[in-house]
C-alpha cells in the first residue's frame, strides 16, 4: 500500500487525497512528500485495525504520528532515532568536556525515553546503534529504579496490545518532552554555550544549592499542593492536558523526579549534575537575558515540562522563607524603633523641663533680689555727694526697700498681665502713689513717710540693678490713661520727676501669661482670618458677579441671535407665502412673541431689530403704508428667494386661455411652427433634445406629440401632434410665453407643408415623452 502511494502520479495522489477529504492543492516537489505521508497515514489508519498483534509496531507508529500531529513536539520514532544519533555524535565530537557536565542531565532525562523505546520494541533498540555504552548503562539503572518508582500500570513486558496502548498513553507525553529537551540540548550547542557562563557562579554556590534542595525536597514530595501545581504547570506548558491520562502522567513525572533525586546522594557526579542543570536553567530563566530572548524561548518551551515542576518546588520554598524572614525583620525593626523612640521622648522631656524651670525661675523675684551680686549703693556718711533716697541707700533700710519690692512685685506682675491681656483700664505700671497705697494697706506699716522713704530707696536700688527686671519710668502723660513712658536711667532724673508725680515702676521685659498669650494669638489670628475671609468673599463675589454678568450677556446675545433667526425665518416664510414682498415689523413681533412676554422681551426685540437693521443684508427696513397707516416693514430681498421654477419658462406675456383674443377657437391643423425658442448662435449639441424636453414638460403630458424637430437656419421648431386638438393644447401652453428671455410665438402649419418638410415624420404613435422624469431645468452649458 505504501509503495503504491509512493509510486502514484500527481493526479492519482490528488484524487486519492480528495477521496479522503483533504483539500485539493498543488502537488509540487516540496509538498508531494508531505501529502504522500498524509495519505499513507490515512490509509494505514483505515486498513489496519488496532487489535491485530502483527501490526503492533505499525499501530504504534501511527499513534505516534497522531500524537505528534496533535500535541507532542517530535513525531515519529524514526525521527527520534535520528536525533538520538545526532545527539550522540555532537556530544562526542563537538562539545568540549567542560560542557559535558551541563549536558549530562538532559541525557539522563532522556533515559526514560530510552526505557520507553526498550519497552516498545527491541528492533528499535537494536537500530539505535549510535548510542554510547555509558548511556546504555544509565538506561539500565534508570529502568531498575523506575520499576520500583513507577506505578503498576507501567508494564514493561508488552504482553498484550491493550497494555501497550495504556503504557503508550501514560508514557508518551513524558517521553516526547524528554526527547525534545534532550534533542534541543544536543542540537543547540549555542544555547548550551550561552548557559555555560553562569555555570561558574553556580559552581561557587554549589554548596548552597544541594542543601537548599534536599531540605525542600522531602516536603514537596508529600505535599499534594505541589503535585497539583506540577500538574497544572504540565498542563499549561505542554499540550498534555487534553489527554485523558493526565493524572497518570503527572504522577509519573513526580515519581520520575523522586527516582532522579533519591540516587543523587550516591555519587557526587549525580548529585551535582541535575541541580546544576536545573539551576542554570532557572538562572537563565530568571535572568531572562534580554540579549538572547529567542534562545531562552526555545529552551523554555522545550524544557518546560521537565523544568517547571522543580521550579515550582523552589519558588514555593522561597516564598515561605521570605515570609518568615519578613516577620522576623518586622519584629526586630519594631524593637529598634522602640529604643530610638524612647530616646527621643526622653530628650523632649528634658527640654520641656528645662523650659518649664526657666519660666518659673524668671518670675521668681525674691531670688533675684536677694542675690549677693546685686549692686547696692550704701550711704556712707563721709562721702559728701551721698544723699539717702536719691543716689544711695542707708544700710539699715535696704531690707525694707527689698521687702517693699517683694510686696509690690506680684501686684505689678498681675497688672502687667491684665494690661497685656487687654483688660480695659489696666496700666502696665505702678505709680508712686499706688505703691504707697499698697504699702500702707499692709498691717505692719505704721508710717506713710516711712513708706515714702522705702520707695525712694527702692527706686535707687532698681536703677542700680537693671538686672532685677524692673524699671523706674517717667510717665509721659499723667492725665490720660495712656501707657506711654520712658525709662529713667539715672537717679538724678528721678528727683526731677518725683516732684511732678510722674514716676512709676514697671517690669523691664513684661511677659504675657500663657492663657492671655493664647487668647491674644487666637484673637489676632481670628481677626486676620476674618480679614482674609472677607477679602476672599469679596473676590468670590466679584468673580461670581462677573461670571453671572458674562453668562447673562451670553444668554442675552443668544436670545437675540435666536430672535434674529426667527425673524428672518418669519420674513422669508411670510413673504413667500403671502406673495407680498414685505411684512410689518410689528406683525412679525406679534407672531413671534406671546402677549405676556412682549413687555419682558422688549429689550431683546429691540436689539434684534437693531441687529437686523445693521447686519442683515437680505432684509431691508422701510416704511410702507399698510391699510392706510404708515408702518415700518421688512422687505425680503433674497437673491435666491425666487422659487425654483423651470428656468426656461419664465412666465406668460399675454393671455392665451379660453376666451382671450389670442386664443383660436378651433385648431386647424395638428402641426405647429414655434419661433424664437433659440437663436442662431445657440448651437449646443443637445439643442433638439433640450427643446423637445422643454416643450414636453410645458405641455405636461396632456397632449400627444408625435414629432419635434429643429430648423437651425430659420431658428424654428416644428411640432407635429396626434390631432388638431392636441396642437391646440400645445399652442395654448406655449404661445406668448417667455422662454429663456425670448418670447415664443406659435403658428399653425398645414400638414402638407409639414410632411413636405419632414416626410419621415410618423403618422401615429408612439408619442414622445420627456427624456428626464423630473421637471427640472437644463443645467447651464
Amino acid at each position, binding site marked *: 500500500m505504501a509503495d503504491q502511494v509512493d509510486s502514484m502520479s500527481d493526479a492519482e495522489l490528488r484524487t486519492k487525497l480528495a477521496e479522503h477529504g483533504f483539500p485539493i492543492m498543488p502537488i509540487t516537489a516540496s*509538498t508531494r512528500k508531505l501529502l504522500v505521508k498524509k495519505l499513507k497515514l490515512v490509509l494505514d489508519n483505515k486498513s489496519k485495525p488496532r487489535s491485530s498483534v502483527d501490526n503492533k509496531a505499525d499501530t504504534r507508529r501511527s499513534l505516534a504520528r497522531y500524537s505528534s500531529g496533535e500535541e507532542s513536539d517530535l513525531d515519529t520514532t524514526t525521527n527520534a532515532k535520528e536525533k538520538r544519533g545526532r545527539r550522540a555524535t555532537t556530544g562526542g565530537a563537538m562539545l568540549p568536556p567542560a560542557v559535558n557536565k551541563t549536558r549530562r542531565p538532559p541525557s539522563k532525562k532522556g533515559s526514560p525515553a530510552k526505557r520507553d523505546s526498550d519497552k516498545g520494541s527491541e528492533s528499535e533498540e537494536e537500530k539505535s546503534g549510535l548510542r554510547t555504552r555509558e548511556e546504555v548503562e544509565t538506561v539500565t539503572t534508570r529502568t531498575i529504579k523506575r520499576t520500583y518508582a513507577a506505578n503498576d500500570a507501567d508494564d514493561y513486558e508488552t504482553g498484550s496490545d491493550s497494555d501497550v496502548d495504556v503504557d503508550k498513553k501514560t508514557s508518551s507525553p513524558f517521553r516526547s518532552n524528554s526527547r525534545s529537551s534532550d534533542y534541543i540540548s544536543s542540537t543547540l550547542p549555542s544555547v548550551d554555550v550561552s548557559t555555560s557562563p553562569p555555570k561558574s557562579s553556580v559552581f561557587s554556590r554549589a554548596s548552597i544549592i544541594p542543601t537548599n534542595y534536599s531540605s525542600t525536597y522531602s516536603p514537596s514530595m508529600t505535599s499534594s499542593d505541589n503535585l497539583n501545581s506540577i500538574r497544572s504547570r504540565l498542563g499549561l506548558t505542554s499540550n498534555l492536558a487534553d489527554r485523558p491520562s493526565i493524572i497518570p502522567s503527572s504522577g509519573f513525572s513526580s515519581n520520575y523526579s523522586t527516582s532522579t533525586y533519591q540516587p543523587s546522594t550516591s555519587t557526587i557526579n549525580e548529585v551535582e549534575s541535575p541541580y546544576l542543570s536545573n539551576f542554570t536553567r532557572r538562572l537563565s530563566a530568571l535572568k531572562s537575558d534580554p540579549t538572547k530572548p529567542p534562545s531562552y524561548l526555545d529552551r523554555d518551551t*522545550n524544557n518546560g515540562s521537565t523544568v517547571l515542576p522543580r521550579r515550582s518546588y523552589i519558588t514555593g520554598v522561597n516564598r515561605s522563607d521570605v515570609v518568615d524572614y519578613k516577620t522576623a525583620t518586622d519584629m526586630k525593626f519594631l524593637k529598634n524603633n522602640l529604643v530610638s523612640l524612647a530616646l527621643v521622648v526622653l530628650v523632649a522631656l528634658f527640654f520641656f523641663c528645662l523650659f518649664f524651670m526657666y519660666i518659673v525661675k524668671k518670675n521668681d523675684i525674691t531670688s533675684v533680689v536677694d542675690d549677693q551680686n546685686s549692686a547696692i549703693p550704701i550711704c556712707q556718711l563721709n562721702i559728701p555727694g551721698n544723699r539717702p533716697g536719691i543716689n544711695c541707700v542707708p544700710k539699715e533700710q535696704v531690707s525694707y526697700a527689698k521687702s517693699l519690692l517683694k510686696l509690690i512685685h506680684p501686684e505689678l506682675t498681675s497688672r502687667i498681665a491684665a494690661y497685656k491681656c487687654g483688660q480695659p483700664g489696666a496700666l502696665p505700671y505702678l505709680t508712686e502713689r499706688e505703691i504707697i497705697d499698697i504699702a500702707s494697706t499692709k498691717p505692719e506699716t505704721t508710717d506713710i513717710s516711712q513708706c515714702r522713704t522705702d520707695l525712694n530707696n527702692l527706686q535707687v536700688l532698681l536703677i542700680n540693678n537693671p538686672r532685677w527686671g524692673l524699671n523706674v519710668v517717667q510717665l509721659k502723660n499723667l492725665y490720660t490713661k495712656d501707657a506711654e513712658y520712658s525709662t529713667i536711667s539715672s537717679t538724678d532724673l528721678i528727683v526731677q520727676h518725683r516732684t511732678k508725680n510722674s514716676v512709676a515702676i514697671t517690669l523691664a521685659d513684661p511677659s504675657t501669661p500663657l492663657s492671655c498669650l493664647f487668647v491674644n494669638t487666637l484673637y489676632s489670628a481670628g481677626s486676620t482670618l476674618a480679614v482674609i475671609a472677607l477679602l476672599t468673599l469679596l473676590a468670590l463675589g466679584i468673580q461670581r458677579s462677573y461670571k453671572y454678568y458674562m453668562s447673562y450677556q451670553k444668554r442675552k446675545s443668544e436670545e437675540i441671535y435666536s430672535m434674529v433667526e426667527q425673524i428672518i425665518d418669519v420674513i422669508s416664510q411670510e413673504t413667500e407665502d403671502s406673495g407680498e414682498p414685505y411684512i410689518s415689523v410689528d406683525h412679525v413681533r406679534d407672531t413671534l412673541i406671546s402677549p405676556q412676554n412682549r413687555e419682558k422681551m422688549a429689550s431683546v426685540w429691540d436689539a434684534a431689530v437693531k441687529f437686523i437693521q445693521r447686519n442683515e443684508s437680505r432684509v431691508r427696513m422701510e416704511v410702507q403704508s399698510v391699510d392706510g397707516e404708515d408702518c415700518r416693514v421688512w422687505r425680503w430681498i433674497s437673491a435666491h428667494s425666487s422659487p425654483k421654477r423651470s428656468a426656461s419658462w419664465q412666465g406668460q406675456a399675454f393671455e392665451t386661455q379660453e376666451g382671450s383674443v389670442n386664443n383660436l377657437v378651433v385648431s386647424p391643423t395638428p402641426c405647429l411652427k414655434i419661433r424664437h425658442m433659440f437663436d442662431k448662435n445657440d448651437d449646443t449639441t443637445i439643442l433638439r433634445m433640450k427643446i423637445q424636453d422643454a416643450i414636453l414638460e410645458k405641455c405636461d403630458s396632456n397632449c400627444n406629440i408625435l414629432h419635434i424637430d429643429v430648423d437651425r437656419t430659420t431658428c424654428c421648431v416644428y411640432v407635429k401632434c396626434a390631432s388638431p386638438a392636441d396642437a391646440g393644447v400645445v399652442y395654448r401652453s406655449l404661445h406668448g410665453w417667455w422662454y429663456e428671455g425670448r418670447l415664443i410665438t406659435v403658428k399653425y402649419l398645414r400638414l402638407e407643408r409639414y410632411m413636405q418638410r419632414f416626410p419621415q415624420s410618423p403618422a401615429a404613435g408612439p408619442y414622445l415623452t420627456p427624456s428626464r422624469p423630473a421637471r427640472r431645468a437644463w443645467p447651464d452649458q
Partner: protein
Amino acid sequence: MSSTSQKHRNFVAEPMGEKPVTELAGVGEVLGKRLEVAGFDKAYTVLGQFLVLKKDKELFQEWLKDTCNANSKQSADCYQCLKDWCDEFL
C-alpha cells in the same frame, strides 16, 4: 491565542520584502538554518509554501515539522504569523 510575540507583531506590521526566514515568528536561528539548508532562505519562500498548502494549518505545521523539525509551538507561531500577514497584506 491570547497574545502574540513582539516578533510576530514586527513581522505582521509591514510587507515582508526581502526579510530572511528568521524574521518569521517561531523560526529562530536553528530552524532558520535548517530551512535555509532546505532552500527556504527568505520569508517569502516559506510564504509561498504556506500558500501552496492553501493556508491549511495542519498541513503547514506538518510540513514545517518535516522540513526543520519545528515543534508544535514553533510551527503554530509560524503559521499564525503568516496567516496574519496574509490577512493584512494579501
